[in-house]
């Protein structure tokens, strides 16, 4: 359990807002708890808000990549939002590439990305259960 990081439900997405300096065990616990919550709530998206986070080191960076990969396997998309400029500069110099992690400047833009991705897949999911969810990079017109 990581009581320090609440996981909130926001429509069909989960919002994780990291507000405190996490130690590595908390980071691992958060990852496990999030996987369980994705399944329990059938969430289609995960937003990780790091606007209050003052450093992202290789361990936390790896967690973002793991959560992105994990949620993809559980049929959800992950967007990391609110990265501070100094954190971005440091990440690049550290050599961390955040493989497979989508980012947005703020929560609003992150939600817009999720809405676009989930709108794109929903009609296809209904029409064609065998649809391969690999190919979701571009928005697909829906509902019209």
């Amino acid at each position, binding site marked *: 359990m990581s009581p320090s990081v609440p996981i909130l439900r926001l429509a069909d997405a989960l919002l994780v807002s990291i507000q405190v300096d996490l130690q590595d065990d908390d980071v691992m616990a958060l990852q496990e708890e999030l996987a369980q919550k994705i399944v329990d709530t059938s969430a289609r998206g995960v937003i990780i808000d790091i606007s209050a986070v003052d450093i*992202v080191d290789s361990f936390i960076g790896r967690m973002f990549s793991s959560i992105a990969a994990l949620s993809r396997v559980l049929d959800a998309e992950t967007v990391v939002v609110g990265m501070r400029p100094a954190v971005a500069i440091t990440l690049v110099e550290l050599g961390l590439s955040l493989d497979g992690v989508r980012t947005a400047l703020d929560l609003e833009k992150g939600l817009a990305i999720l809405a676009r991705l989930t709108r794109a897949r929903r009609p296809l999911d209904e029409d064609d259960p065998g649809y391969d969810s690999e190919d979701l990079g571009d928005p697909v017109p829906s509902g019209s």
Partner: protein
Amino acid sequence: MPASDTATLPICTGDDVVRLRQLVRTRALEIRLSLVDQTKLVTAASELARNTLVHGGSGSAVVETVEKGGRRGVRAAFVDSGPGIPDLDLAMTAGWTSGGGLGLGLSGAKRLVDEFDIDTEVGRGTSVTVVKWAR
């Protein structure tokens, strides 16, 4: 290089790594490192403290303010009595990892600071010292 307000912290648990990050940030603020330099130093310290914990088993960190030629800086030294690093050149290669991590710890930390010294001996332990100077 007169040192002041030297603090020594044990690095034995994950919470110690968090405390170390906070101490380094406090020192960085005191000497008015820029926000980007603070972030780089604290990130480097976090990587090195984790190395001390994970690879060294446990150890300690000494954090102090230093001065040279009118410039102030923060120096952090990480010492463990762990197994040491058999092949330092390899360990300093970006992307190389002895297991689990991304292999960015040592090489990444080095890029984030102004001075980086490492002393390691197999069977005796490892000590890494970094300095970040105010501009």
